[in-house]
Protein backbone atom coordinates (compact mmCIF):
# COMPACT_ATOMS: atom_id res chain seq x y z
CA UNK A 1 0.00 0.00 0.00
CA UNK A 2 2.71 2.44 0.98
CA UNK A 3 4.37 1.88 -2.38
CA UNK A 4 1.20 2.85 -4.19
CA UNK A 5 0.89 6.08 -2.20
CA UNK A 6 4.51 6.90 -2.74
CA UNK A 7 4.22 6.52 -6.49
CA UNK A 8 1.07 8.68 -6.51
CA UNK A 9 2.84 11.38 -4.49
CA UNK A 10 5.80 11.25 -6.82
CA UNK A 11 3.45 11.68 -9.78
CA UNK A 12 1.19 14.46 -8.50
CA UNK A 13 3.46 16.48 -6.25
CA UNK A 14 5.28 18.28 -9.07
CA UNK A 15 1.93 19.11 -10.70
CA UNK A 16 0.47 20.51 -7.48
CA UNK A 17 3.55 22.53 -6.59
CA UNK A 18 4.09 23.59 -10.22
CA UNK A 19 7.54 22.11 -10.25
CA UNK A 20 9.23 21.12 -13.49
CA UNK A 21 8.31 17.62 -14.59
CA UNK A 22 10.80 15.07 -13.32
CA UNK A 23 12.95 13.94 -16.20
CA UNK A 24 12.90 10.34 -17.24
CA UNK A 25 15.87 8.53 -15.85
CA UNK A 26 18.19 7.88 -18.76
CA UNK A 27 21.04 5.41 -18.91
CA UNK A 28 24.36 7.14 -18.46
CA UNK A 29 26.57 6.79 -21.51
CA UNK A 30 29.76 7.72 -19.66
CA UNK A 31 30.84 4.12 -18.98
CA UNK A 32 30.11 3.29 -22.61
CA UNK A 33 32.40 6.08 -23.76
CA UNK A 34 35.07 4.87 -21.33
CA UNK A 35 34.90 1.40 -22.79
CA UNK A 36 34.99 2.78 -26.33
CA UNK A 37 38.10 4.78 -25.48
CA UNK A 38 39.78 1.72 -24.01
CA UNK A 39 38.92 -0.27 -27.15
CA UNK A 40 40.22 2.57 -29.30
CA UNK A 41 43.54 2.66 -27.45
CA UNK A 42 43.82 -1.10 -27.70
CA UNK A 43 43.27 -1.14 -31.46
CA UNK A 44 45.51 1.90 -32.00
CA UNK A 45 48.39 0.34 -30.12
CA UNK A 46 48.07 -3.23 -31.31
CA UNK A 47 47.17 -2.74 -34.97
CA UNK A 48 49.82 -2.89 -37.62
CA UNK A 49 49.48 -1.46 -41.09
CA UNK A 50 52.69 -2.84 -42.61
CA UNK A 51 52.00 -4.80 -45.74
CA UNK A 52 53.86 -8.06 -45.79
CA UNK A 53 55.20 -9.04 -49.18
CA UNK A 54 57.14 -12.01 -50.32
CA UNK A 55 60.27 -12.49 -52.29
CA UNK A 56 60.27 -15.63 -54.36
CA UNK A 57 63.77 -16.97 -54.82
CA UNK A 58 64.92 -20.10 -56.52
CA UNK A 59 66.97 -22.40 -54.40
CA UNK A 60 70.06 -24.29 -55.50
CA UNK A 61 67.80 -27.34 -55.94
CA UNK A 62 66.29 -25.83 -59.07
CA UNK A 63 69.70 -25.60 -60.73
CA UNK A 64 71.13 -28.69 -59.08
CA UNK A 65 70.67 -30.89 -62.17
CA UNK A 66 73.60 -30.86 -64.56
CA UNK A 67 72.73 -28.58 -67.46
CA UNK A 68 75.80 -28.41 -69.69
CA UNK A 69 74.37 -25.82 -72.05
CA UNK A 70 73.45 -23.35 -69.32
CA UNK A 71 76.21 -20.91 -68.42
CA UNK A 72 76.17 -20.08 -64.74
CA UNK A 73 77.92 -17.23 -62.98
CA UNK A 74 78.73 -17.01 -59.31
CA UNK A 75 78.21 -13.93 -57.19
CA UNK A 76 79.61 -13.79 -53.70
CA UNK A 77 78.54 -10.88 -51.50
CA UNK A 78 81.50 -9.78 -49.40
CA UNK A 79 79.93 -6.98 -47.38
CA UNK A 80 77.37 -4.21 -47.74
CA UNK A 81 79.33 -2.57 -50.59
CA UNK A 82 81.38 -5.11 -52.47
CA UNK A 83 80.89 -8.43 -54.18
CA UNK A 84 82.76 -10.88 -56.32
CA UNK A 85 81.35 -11.83 -59.70
CA UNK A 86 83.23 -14.79 -61.10
CA UNK A 87 86.05 -13.90 -58.68
CA UNK A 88 86.27 -10.29 -59.90
CA UNK A 89 85.67 -7.57 -57.34
CA UNK A 90 82.84 -5.05 -57.97
CA UNK A 91 80.95 -2.38 -56.09
CA UNK A 92 77.20 -3.01 -55.79
CA UNK A 93 76.27 0.19 -57.54
CA UNK A 94 78.94 0.12 -60.26
CA UNK A 95 77.82 0.60 -63.86
CA UNK A 96 80.17 -2.16 -64.94
CA UNK A 97 78.37 -4.68 -62.78
CA UNK A 98 74.97 -3.51 -64.02
CA UNK A 99 76.15 -3.87 -67.63
CA UNK A 100 77.45 -7.38 -66.98
CA UNK A 101 74.22 -8.45 -65.32
CA UNK A 102 72.24 -6.93 -68.18
CA UNK A 103 74.31 -9.05 -70.53
CA UNK A 104 73.50 -12.18 -68.52
CA UNK A 105 69.81 -11.42 -68.85
CA UNK A 106 70.07 -10.92 -72.60
CA UNK A 107 72.08 -14.12 -73.08
CA UNK A 108 69.76 -16.05 -70.72
CA UNK A 109 72.61 -16.99 -68.41
CA UNK A 110 71.98 -17.87 -64.81
CA UNK A 111 73.49 -16.45 -61.64
CA UNK A 112 74.09 -18.23 -58.35
CA UNK A 113 74.15 -15.85 -55.42
CA UNK A 114 75.82 -16.61 -52.11
CA UNK A 115 77.02 -14.38 -49.32
CA UNK A 116 79.82 -14.50 -46.83
CA UNK A 117 78.46 -15.84 -43.56
CA UNK A 118 78.63 -12.47 -41.80
CA UNK A 119 76.70 -10.52 -44.45
CA UNK A 120 73.31 -9.47 -43.12
CA UNK A 121 70.11 -10.90 -44.56
CA UNK A 122 68.90 -7.38 -45.31
CA UNK A 123 72.01 -6.73 -47.44
CA UNK A 124 71.47 -10.00 -49.32
CA UNK A 125 67.83 -9.18 -50.06
CA UNK A 126 68.64 -5.61 -51.05
CA UNK A 127 71.11 -6.94 -53.59
CA UNK A 128 68.59 -9.45 -54.96
CA UNK A 129 66.12 -6.54 -55.16
CA UNK A 130 68.71 -4.52 -57.08
CA UNK A 131 69.46 -7.18 -59.68
CA UNK A 132 65.83 -8.21 -60.03
CA UNK A 133 65.07 -4.62 -61.00
CA UNK A 134 67.36 -5.01 -64.02
CA UNK A 135 65.13 -7.60 -65.61
CA UNK A 136 64.06 -11.20 -65.49
CA UNK A 137 67.34 -12.69 -64.33
CA UNK A 138 67.76 -16.40 -63.66
CA UNK A 139 68.89 -16.27 -60.09
CA UNK A 140 69.31 -18.91 -57.44
CA UNK A 141 70.38 -18.59 -53.84
CA UNK A 142 73.00 -20.82 -52.26
CA UNK A 143 74.17 -21.32 -48.72
CA UNK A 144 76.59 -18.84 -47.20
CA UNK A 145 80.34 -19.18 -47.57
CA UNK A 146 82.52 -19.03 -44.47
CA UNK A 147 85.33 -16.49 -44.47
Amino acid at each position, binding site marked *: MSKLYLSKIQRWLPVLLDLPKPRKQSISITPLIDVIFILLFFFMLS*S*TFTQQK*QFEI*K*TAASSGQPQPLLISHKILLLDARQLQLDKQLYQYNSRELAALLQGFIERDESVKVAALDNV*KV*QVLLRFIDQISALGNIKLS*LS*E*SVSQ
Partner: protein
Amino acid sequence: MNLLSAQPQTRQASTLDDSMVPAINIVFLLLIFFMIAGRIEATSDQLIIPTSVSETALAHSEAEIKIAADGVIVLNTQTMHSAADLLAALGKLALNKQLLVTCHIHKELPAKALDPVLSAVRKLGIKKLNIATQVQL
Protein backbone atom coordinates in the same frame (compact mmCIF):
# COMPACT_ATOMS: atom_id res chain seq x y z
CA MET B 1 19.08 29.92 -3.81
CA ASN B 2 19.53 26.31 -4.60
CA LEU B 3 16.32 26.22 -6.57
CA LEU B 4 17.39 29.25 -8.60
CA SER B 5 20.82 27.91 -9.38
CA ALA B 6 19.49 24.48 -10.33
CA GLN B 7 18.22 25.55 -13.75
CA PRO B 8 21.45 27.06 -15.19
CA GLN B 9 23.48 24.10 -13.93
CA THR B 10 21.26 21.67 -15.80
CA ARG B 11 21.50 23.78 -18.93
CA GLN B 12 25.28 23.94 -18.58
CA ALA B 13 25.48 20.20 -18.11
CA SER B 14 23.30 19.54 -21.13
CA THR B 15 25.41 21.97 -23.22
CA LEU B 16 28.51 20.07 -22.16
CA ASP B 17 26.86 16.78 -23.08
CA ASP B 18 25.88 18.17 -26.47
CA SER B 19 29.40 19.40 -27.16
CA MET B 20 30.75 15.94 -26.41
CA VAL B 21 28.63 14.31 -29.10
CA PRO B 22 30.93 15.15 -32.06
CA ALA B 23 33.94 13.96 -30.05
CA ILE B 24 32.22 10.67 -29.32
CA ASN B 25 31.31 10.34 -33.01
CA ILE B 26 34.92 10.81 -34.00
CA VAL B 27 36.07 8.31 -31.41
CA PHE B 28 33.59 5.80 -32.81
CA LEU B 29 34.82 6.44 -36.35
CA LEU B 30 38.44 6.01 -35.26
CA LEU B 31 37.57 2.80 -33.46
CA ILE B 32 35.82 1.40 -36.53
CA PHE B 33 38.75 2.45 -38.73
CA PHE B 34 41.34 0.73 -36.55
CA MET B 35 39.18 -2.36 -36.20
CA ILE B 36 38.73 -2.74 -39.95
CA ALA B 37 41.97 -1.43 -41.43
CA GLY B 38 44.42 -2.62 -38.78
CA ARG B 39 45.70 -6.11 -38.38
CA ILE B 40 46.45 -7.48 -34.95
CA GLU B 41 49.52 -9.63 -34.83
CA ALA B 42 52.18 -10.49 -32.34
CA THR B 43 55.04 -8.15 -33.09
CA SER B 44 58.40 -8.43 -31.53
CA ASP B 45 61.77 -6.75 -31.74
CA GLN B 46 63.12 -10.23 -32.12
CA LEU B 47 61.65 -10.70 -35.58
CA ILE B 48 61.78 -7.69 -37.85
CA ILE B 49 61.58 -8.91 -41.40
CA PRO B 50 63.73 -7.31 -44.11
CA THR B 51 62.43 -4.65 -46.47
CA SER B 52 62.17 -5.02 -50.21
CA VAL B 53 60.49 -3.48 -53.22
CA SER B 54 58.65 -6.70 -54.01
CA GLU B 55 55.02 -6.19 -54.96
CA THR B 56 53.92 -9.79 -54.49
CA ALA B 57 51.56 -10.15 -51.56
CA LEU B 58 52.53 -12.70 -48.96
CA ALA B 59 50.77 -15.95 -49.78
CA HIS B 60 49.70 -18.51 -47.23
CA SER B 61 51.99 -21.50 -47.15
CA GLU B 62 51.90 -24.84 -45.41
CA ALA B 63 55.39 -24.38 -44.02
CA GLU B 64 56.06 -21.11 -42.23
CA ILE B 65 59.58 -20.86 -40.91
CA LYS B 66 60.43 -18.09 -38.47
CA ILE B 67 64.00 -17.27 -37.54
CA ALA B 68 64.18 -14.74 -34.72
CA ALA B 69 67.10 -12.51 -33.73
CA ASP B 70 68.41 -15.17 -31.35
CA GLY B 71 68.65 -17.62 -34.28
CA VAL B 72 65.94 -19.95 -32.98
CA ILE B 73 64.11 -21.61 -35.86
CA VAL B 74 60.39 -22.21 -35.53
CA LEU B 75 58.48 -24.22 -38.10
CA ASN B 76 54.71 -23.76 -37.80
CA THR B 77 54.93 -23.00 -34.03
CA GLN B 78 57.28 -25.95 -33.44
CA THR B 79 60.80 -25.07 -32.31
CA MET B 80 63.58 -26.75 -34.24
CA HIS B 81 66.67 -27.58 -32.22
CA SER B 82 68.95 -28.31 -35.14
CA ALA B 83 69.17 -28.22 -38.92
CA ALA B 84 68.48 -31.96 -38.93
CA ASP B 85 65.22 -31.39 -37.02
CA LEU B 86 64.17 -28.83 -39.61
CA LEU B 87 65.01 -31.17 -42.47
CA ALA B 88 63.02 -33.99 -40.88
CA ALA B 89 60.01 -31.79 -40.10
CA LEU B 90 59.99 -30.23 -43.56
CA GLY B 91 60.41 -33.67 -45.09
CA LYS B 92 57.24 -34.85 -43.35
CA LEU B 93 55.32 -31.87 -44.71
CA ALA B 94 56.73 -32.30 -48.21
CA LEU B 95 55.80 -35.98 -48.49
CA ASN B 96 52.83 -35.85 -50.80
CA LYS B 97 52.84 -32.49 -52.45
CA GLN B 98 54.98 -29.70 -53.79
CA LEU B 99 55.52 -27.79 -50.58
CA LEU B 100 55.40 -24.02 -50.46
CA VAL B 101 57.88 -22.74 -47.90
CA THR B 102 57.87 -19.20 -46.53
CA CYS B 103 60.67 -17.96 -44.36
CA HIS B 104 60.36 -15.00 -41.98
CA ILE B 105 63.86 -14.08 -40.94
CA HIS B 106 65.12 -11.24 -38.74
CA LYS B 107 66.79 -8.71 -41.02
CA GLU B 108 69.85 -8.16 -38.84
CA LEU B 109 70.83 -11.81 -38.81
CA PRO B 110 73.85 -12.93 -40.84
CA ALA B 111 73.26 -14.88 -44.05
CA LYS B 112 74.55 -17.94 -42.22
CA ALA B 113 71.25 -18.07 -40.31
CA LEU B 114 69.44 -18.83 -43.56
CA ASP B 115 71.68 -21.84 -44.30
CA PRO B 116 69.63 -24.52 -42.48
CA VAL B 117 66.56 -23.48 -44.47
CA LEU B 118 68.40 -23.31 -47.80
CA SER B 119 70.09 -26.61 -47.11
CA ALA B 120 66.81 -28.32 -46.15
CA VAL B 121 64.90 -27.07 -49.19
CA ARG B 122 67.75 -28.05 -51.49
CA LYS B 123 67.94 -31.56 -50.03
CA LEU B 124 64.17 -31.98 -50.31
CA GLY B 125 64.19 -30.76 -53.89
CA ILE B 126 61.98 -27.77 -53.12
CA LYS B 127 62.68 -25.36 -55.94
CA LYS B 128 61.21 -22.15 -54.60
CA LEU B 129 61.52 -20.45 -51.28
CA ASN B 130 59.51 -17.40 -50.33
CA ILE B 131 61.14 -14.89 -48.04
CA ALA B 132 58.70 -12.62 -46.23
CA THR B 133 59.53 -8.96 -46.57
CA GLN B 134 57.84 -5.71 -45.76
CA VAL B 135 57.35 -2.63 -47.84
CA GLN B 136 59.91 0.07 -47.19
CA LEU B 137 58.04 3.18 -46.10
